[in-house]
C-alpha cells in the first residue's frame, strides 16, 4: 500500500521538515499489523515527493498475535494492497506531528497553503469514481482517478473496484492529512478494528473545521463509524444538533415507505381480532415486529413466534424483553425454532396463524410441503398470508425491470397468481378465501402488498 505526497513549493524539500522525516533517509517504523516505510522518490527544491509504504503481515492479519483472533478471516484479501483504515493508523503514527499541525523547525509553514499532490496507489470504492469525487471535490481538490479492468484476460468481468487516485489542492499539509485520515476508511467502507465510543471523539477531532460543512457529512459519519447507528446518531447530533433525528440508514425500496410494513402488521392484527383469535401463531416471526403488537394486545392470550433463523429468534427475545416481562405477560409469547416445510406438532390446535411476508422466501418447489404443514397439519382456524404484489414493483424506481424487492425472495406474485394459489389451497384444505390489497392502491397495478385470509369451513 503506497501513499505519496508531493509539493512544488520551493524549496520543496521543506516537506521533509513538515513531515518530520528526512528526505535522504529510508526509514522503517513498526506497526501492530506490519511495517511502515518512509522514503523520498524525488527530493529537489522544485519538487519533493514523500512516500509512505505499508507492508502488512498477511498471515498475522488472519492469525492474530499470541492466540488472539485475527482481524480478517480470509488469507486471500486485499488489505495488504489497498488504502484502508490501516493507512489512517499509519498516518497517525508515522506523520503524527504533521497530522496534529506541529512543526518545530518550520512553524511558519504549518498553516501555509501549499500546492500539494497526494497519490494513493489503490483506493477501493464499490461506488465507482463518483463517490471519490463527492468526498474530495467539496474540499477543494482536483480529483483524478484511474480505473482498471478486473482481469484483462476476462474483459466481460468489467472494471475492478480499485482506483489510483491523484488529488491536487493548495492547502495546509495537516488539512490534507486529516482529510485522508477520515476519508480513506470511508471509501473503503470497512474498519479493521472495533469501533467504540472514542471513535466519535476521533472523528470530531480530525473532522474539525471541515466535516460540519461537508455535504456528505452524513454518509461520512455513518461509514466512518462502520454503520453503528447509535454512534452515528451521536456523532451527527454533536456535529449538527438540529439534525439529530435524521435517519442515516441508506434507503431501500421498502424503506422508502417506512409505514408500509407497519400498516401491514396493523391490518393483520385487525384481521386476527375480527376472527376473535386468542391463541395465535406468528409463522416466520423474524425479529418480532408483529409479536410486539400481539404481546401488548390483551385480546391475544397465547402467542407462538416461529422462525427458521435462530439468530432472528435471539434478537426477538432481546427486543421484546421476553426475559423481563411483567408477570401478567410472562409466558404469553413462546419462541420456537422450526421450519415451515416440516410437519410440526407443536403448532397444532391454534386459532390462527399469521404469515407476514414469508411465503416468498420459500422455493416454489417447497411450497407443496409448506401448504400441507400449515393448512393440513397445523390446521389453524384462520390463516392470514401476506406477500408482495409483483405488479407494484414498477412503481419502485430503484428496482430494475423483473428484479425482486429482496435478495432472498424466491418469487413475487401478481395479484392473479396469488389469488389462484390461494383458491387452490383453500379448496384443497377446506378454507374459505378472501383476498385484499395492503397499502395505498394504484389504479393500474394495485397495492404494494396483498393479503389472503383463509377461514376454515366448519365441518
Amino acid at each position, binding site marked *: 500500500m503506497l501513499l505519496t505526497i508531493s509539493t512544488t513549493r520551493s524549496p520543496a524539500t521543506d516537506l521533509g521538515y513538515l513531515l518530520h522525516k528526512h528526505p535522504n533517509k529510508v526509514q522503517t517504523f513498526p506497526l501492530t499489523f506490519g511495517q511502515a516505510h518512509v522514503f523520498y*522518490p524525488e527530493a529537489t527544491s522544485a519538487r519533493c515527493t514523500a*512516500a509512505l*509504504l505499508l507492508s502488512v503481515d*498477511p498471515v498475522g492479519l488472519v492469525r492474530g498475535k499470541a492466540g488472539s483472533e485475527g482481524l480478517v478471516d480470509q488469507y486471500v484479501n486485499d488489505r495488504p494492497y489497498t488504502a484502508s483504515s490501516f493507512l489512517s493508523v499509519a498516518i497517525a503514527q508515522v506523520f503524527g506531528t504533521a497530522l496534529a499541525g506541529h512543526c518545530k523547525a518550520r512553524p511558519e509553514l504549518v498553516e501555509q497553503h501549499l500546492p500539494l499532490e497526494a497519490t494513493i496507489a489503490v483506493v477501493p470504492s464499490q461506488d465507482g469514481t463518483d463517490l471519490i469525487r463527492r468526498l474530495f471535490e467539496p474540499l477543494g481538490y482536483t480529483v483524478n482517478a484511474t480505473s482498471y479492468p478486473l*482481469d484483462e484476460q476476462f474483459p*466481460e468481468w468489467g472494471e475492478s473496484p*480499485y482506483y*489510483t487516485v491523484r488529488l491536487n489542492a493548495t492547502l495546509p499539509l495537516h488539512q490534507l492529512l486529516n482529510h485522508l485520515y477520515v476519508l480513506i476508511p470511508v471509501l473503503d467502507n470497512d474498519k479493521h478494528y472495533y469501533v467504540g465510543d472514542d471513535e466519535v471523539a476521533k472523528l470530531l477531532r480530525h473532522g474539525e473545521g471541515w466535516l460540519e460543512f461537508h455535504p456528505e457529512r452524513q454518509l461520512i459519519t455513518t461509514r466512518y463509524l462502520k454503520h453503528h447507528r447509535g454512534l452515528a446518531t451521536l456523532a451527527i447530533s454533536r456535529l449538527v444538533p438540529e439534525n439529530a433525528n435524521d435517519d442515516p440508514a441508506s434507503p431501500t425500496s421498502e424503506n422508502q415507505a417506512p409505514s408500509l410494513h407497519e400498516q401491514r402488521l396493523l391490518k393483520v392484527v385487525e384481521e386476527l381480532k375480527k376472527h376473535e383469535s386468542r391463541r395465535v401463531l406468528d409463522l416466520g416471526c423474524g425479529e418480532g415486529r408483529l409479536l410486539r403488537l400481539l404481546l401488548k394486545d390483551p385480546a391475544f392470550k397465547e402467542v407462538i413466534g416461529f422462525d*427458521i433463523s435462530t439468530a432472528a429468534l435471539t434478537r426477538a427475545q432481546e427486543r421484546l424483553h421476553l426475559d423481563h416481562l411483567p408477570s401478567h405477560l410472562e409466558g404469553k409469547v413462546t419462541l420456537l425454532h422450526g421450519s415451515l416445510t416440516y410437519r*410440526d406438532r407443536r403448532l397444532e390446535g391454534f386459532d390462527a396463524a399469521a404469515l407476514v411476508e414469508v411465503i416468498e422466501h420459500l422455493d416454489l418447489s417447497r411450497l407443496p410441503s409448506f401448504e400441507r404443514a400449515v393448512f393440513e397439519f397445523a390446521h389453524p382456524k384462520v390463516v392470514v398470508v401476506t406477500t408482495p404484489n409483483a405488479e407494484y414493483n414498477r412503481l419502485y424506481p430503484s428496482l430494475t425491470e423483473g428484479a425482486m424487492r429482496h435478495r432472498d425472495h424466491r418469487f413475487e406474485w401478481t395479484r392473479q397468481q396469488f389469488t389462484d394459489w390461494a383458491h387452490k389451497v383453500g379448496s384443497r384444505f377446506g378454507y374459505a378465501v378472501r383476498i385484499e390489497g395492503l397499502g395505498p392502491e394504484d389504479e393500474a397495478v394495485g397495492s404494494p402488498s396483498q393479503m389472503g385470509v383463509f377461514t376454515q369451513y366448519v365441518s
Partner: protein
Amino acid sequence: MLAKIPELSLILLIGASGSGKSSFAQKHFLPTEILSSDACRAMVSDDETNQAATGDAFDVLHYIAGKRLARGRLTVIDATNVQSESRRSLIALARQHHVLVTAIVLNLPEQICINRNSGRTDRQFSRHVIQRQIRQLKSSLSKLRREGMHQVIVLSSEDEIEAFQWERQPLWNNKSEDHGPFDIIGDVHGCFDELHALVEKLGYHILQDPKGAYQVRHPESRKLVFLGDLVDRGPKIADVLRFVMDAVDSGTALCVPGNHESKLLRKLKGLPVTVSHGLQETLDQLDRENDAFRERTKKFLDGLVSHYVLDSGRLIVAHAGLPETMHGRGSAKVREFALYGETTGETDEFGLPIRYNWASDYRGNAMVVYGHTPVPQPEWLNRTINIDTGCVFGGRLTALRYPENQLVDEAARRVYTDPIRPLNHPAPGLSAQQVQDDVLDIADIAGKRRVQTHLMGTVTVPEENGAAALEVLSRFAADPKWLIYLPPTMSPAETSQEFDTLEHPMEAFLYFQRQNISDVICEQKHMGSRAVIIVCRDDSVAKHRFGVQENSLGIIYTRTGRHFFENPEMELALLNRVRMASETAGLFDHLQTDWLLLDTEIMPWSLKAQDLIQRQYAAVGRAAHIGLAAAVDALTHTARRGLDTADLTSLMTSQQARAEQFIRAYRRYVWPVRSLDDVKIAPFHLLASEGKVHMDQDHEWHLEKLQSLTAADSALITPTPTIRVLLDDSQSIEAGVVWWEQITAAGFEGMVVKPLPFVARNDDGKLVQPAIKVRGREYLRIIYGPDYNAKENLDRLRHRGLAAKRAAALREFALGLEGLQRFVAGEPLRRVHECVHAVLALESQPVDPRL
C-alpha cells in the same frame, strides 16, 4: 412361599408404619427398583419425616415411577399404600404404561407395628396413627382385586414374611430367545388349500398321519407364525385349525389370536355373542367335528397370547399391529389393541369404523408384522407391514419370510366371501411410505441426535448444529426426497514440516502406513465444484423410486444439498447426457437398476463460483498488481537518488512475482460457460444404484465403471487419472511423489490418496480416513494467499490442527453411507433424512475452512 411376579410389574407394598416394608423391600429388590415415599420426602425437603412435604414427595415418586415403567423396569413402591385413593393413582399410572400391578400386603398384628415403631430412634408415630392405618389396611384387603391388582400377596405373620421368596416371571408374550427364522402368515380365514400350498412353497414338509394329525417340519428348522383370524368365512376352517394346532403343539409354529378367534372362544365358552355370517360358517364346520376337537379348539384359543416379542425384541407379531408403547406389555388394553386395533370413532362410507393409523406414527426399531385389514399389496410403512392380502375375499394368502423380508404368496382359488368394502387401491405410483414421507416431521430431526451408523456406531449431533442444518435445509436445499446422500468433508495430509510447501504426498503415505494400509490409489483432484448426480433411466423413476411428484430425470446438487444449477434447463440437458452415456455404457442393465448416484466434480470452478472469483480472487489479484507496481516504481526512483532501498525493493519485487503467480493460479480454473459444451463432469464414485451401495467395491471398480461413461461421452465426462502406490515399496512411493509433482506442475489442483477398498479399517478395527488430499503448491496460493510460501509466512502457517477436520471427515463418511444404505434398503425417508441432516449439521461446526 415362592411367589411368581411378572418381570415387568408395579409392586405396591402395603402395610402400616412399623410393618417392616423398607427392610422387606431391601431384602428382595434392587435398590434402584425401590421408590420410597420417605426418600422422596427427604429429596424435596431434607427431612424424610416431614409430612407437610408429602404432596411434593409423591409428585416426585410418580414422576420417577412413570419414567421407569415407560422404560419397562420393574418398580416397587415403598409407601404405606393403605388408602384406596393413594393406590388409585399408582394403578392408573401402571395402566397408562400397560404394566401389571402386584400388591404385597404386610398384614402384621397391630401390637408388633406399635412395638417396632416405639423402638425407632429416627421418628415415631403416635399409637392411634398406626391403629388407623391398620384399620384402613384391613378394610382394603377385600377390595384390592377389584381395584385392578393383577396379583395380591398377603403375608400375615413375621414367619410368613421371613419365608417369602419370589421369582421373576417372563411375560407370556416374551419370546425374545426365539430367533426363528420365521415365516409369518396373514389372515387365513379357513382357506386351507391356499395355506397348504403356501406352506409347501415355503419349503415345509407336510405329513398327515392315519388319524389325520399333521406333522409339519422345515429342513432348515424354520417356524411358522400365524397372525390370527384362522377361522370364519372360509371353506375349510376345521382343517386350518387342525393344521395350526398340530404345528403349534409340535413347536413348529406360533400363533397369536385374531378378533375372530376371540369371538369364537366366547361363543364356545357359552357367552352371549351376535353370530354373524362368518362365525356361523365356523360353528357349522365345528359341528361336523367331534367333542374332543371342539374341546381342544377351545383350550387352544384360550391359551393364545395377544402378541409375541421375538428375536431379541427385533420382531413383533400381532393380529392388528401394536404401537411401540405396548410392545412386550401385558394388559387388557394391549390385548384389545392387538386384536382389534384402534378406531377413530368415525365410520367410512361403507359404515365400517375408520381405523387409527398407528403405523404412520410408528417410530420403533422393532419390525411389526400384522394383518387384520385386507390390503391389495403388503406395503412397508415405518418398519411395519400388513400382510393380510384378503385370501378369503379372492385376494392372496401372503407370507413374510423373516429375517429375509421376502414376500411369498399364494393366490386364492376363488372368492369365498364378498368383501364389504372393495380392497383399497392406493394412489398409483406412490407407495404408502412415500405418501407418508411427502411431508417430513420436524420431531425426526430436531434436538440433540444420536444417529446409529453401521460404520461407526453412534454419531452424536449437537442440538445447535442441528438447528443450523435445519435452517440450511429449509431455506436453500432441494426437495428432501432427492437428498439421499451428502458427501463428507476431506482432510488434507498432515502439514509437511520439511518441504517448501504445506502439503506433500509423503505425509499422506505415512498416514496410511501408520494405519496399516499398504495399498493406496492416488486420484488426480479436479478443481471445480463438488456435485452429487442422481440420474434416472426414465422420467417415471423419479416418481416411483424417489416419490417426487413432478416428472424428472434426476437431480444435480451441491455438497450442501442445493440445486447445482439455477437454470433447470441446463440441469435437465446435463442429466440427459449423463443418462444417455449410462445407457450406452450399459450401466443400468449391468447393475440392474433404473437410477445411479454419482459423486462428482463439475468444472469449471467459475460455473458455481463466478461471483466469488470476481469479488475475491480477481479483485485481490488486481489490487496486488496495481499496488505492488506502484511501490516498486517509487522505490526505483528512490534508488536512483542513491539511497539504499535494496531490501525493500527485493521484498516488493518478490511479492510482485508471487502476486502474478496467484493470478495465474486462479485463472487456470476459470473459463466461460456459454453452453453445455463448456461444462465438464468428473465422476469418481459410483456410489449407489437400486438395492446397492457400492461401498463393498474398491476404487478401481468405481473408476473402471466410470471410465465406461467417459468412453460413451468423452466431451462431457472427464476421466480421473490415477496411480496405484504400494506403501511397502519405496520405488512405488517415489513414483507417487513424482506423479504428484508432475500433475501439480501441469496446473492441476493436487491429488487425493485413498485406501484401495472403499471402506478401510486399521488393525485395531478403527475406520481409516477414506481419502486424504494433497494439494499442489500453486493451488495453495488461492487458499492461503499470494505470499503464503514466503519463508516468514510458511513457518507460521505450518501450525495448523487437523484433528477436528479428520474427526468430521470420518463421521460424515459414516453418516453419508448410512443414509444411502437406508435408502437402498427402502427405509422411510425420515431415516435417510436424519443422516443427511446430520452430515450438514457436522459441517456447520467450526473447522478451519482452509483445510
